[in-house]
């Protein structure tokens, strides 16, 4: 990953934080120029972000999700979606602030509300299940 691609990657993340949503491809092209498309494809191939299938729109800039998910996160006065519970906990970690994750138990549908305070979950009573072995996380990252 060269410095030019890193600059574009960092711009995407910065805009994601500023906007509370993914920057669109049109916005990125306007802000970064025509070379952004090939850079985004290289960043996707390097797992530095995830594009929508056969498109140039951002799907994930992990831990942030560009589309609504069952993992809503409030932090630093704004809100985002995490791609999964791991990412939901990762958003306050990336922002270096406390936060709050809202979800629901996939089994029973009961709401799950967890504060992240000083890097600890409150309450600390839930469990996180990983279905896919680590060797296959990137085989289908959206499913993972």
């Amino acid at each position, binding site marked *: *990953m060269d410095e030019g691609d*890193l600059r574009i*990657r*960092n711009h995407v*993340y*910065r805009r994601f*934080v500023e906007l509370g949503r993914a920057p669109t491809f049109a916005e990125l092209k306007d802000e970064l120029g025509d070379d952004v498309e090939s850079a985004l494809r290289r960043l996707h191939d*390097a*797992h*530095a972000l995830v594009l929508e299938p056969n498109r140039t729109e951002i799907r994930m800039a*992990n*831990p942030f999700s560009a589309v609504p998910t*069952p*993992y809503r996160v409030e932090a630093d006065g704004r809100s985002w979606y995490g791609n*999964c*519970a*791991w*990412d939901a*906990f*990762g*958003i306050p*970690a*990336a*922002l*270096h602030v406390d936060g709050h994750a809202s*979800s629901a*138990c*996939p*089994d*029973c549908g*009961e709401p*799950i509300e*967890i504060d*992240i305070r000083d*890097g*600890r*979950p409150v309450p*600390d*009573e*839930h*469990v*996180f*299940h*990983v*279905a*896919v*072995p*680590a*060797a*296959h*996380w*990137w085989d289908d990252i959206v499913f*993972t």
Partner: protein
Amino acid sequence: MNLFRSEEHAGRWLEHYGYKAGATITAGQLCDLAHAWWSDRLEPDWRPHTRDKNQAILERLGLTGEFWQLP
């Protein structure tokens, strides 16, 4: 990668959908993992984690064994 109210809820959900059980960790462990994995993500000098760096994070948190082996 889902949060459940308890291991019992996770097990019932896996059985209902016919999914094979993977690995279960506590929310506290997940917080530690999230911090180690993502806390540098917005740093201006961020560089991609190497495979070995990520494997070391997992091992430091006790996430060892074949299930947690990165490719």
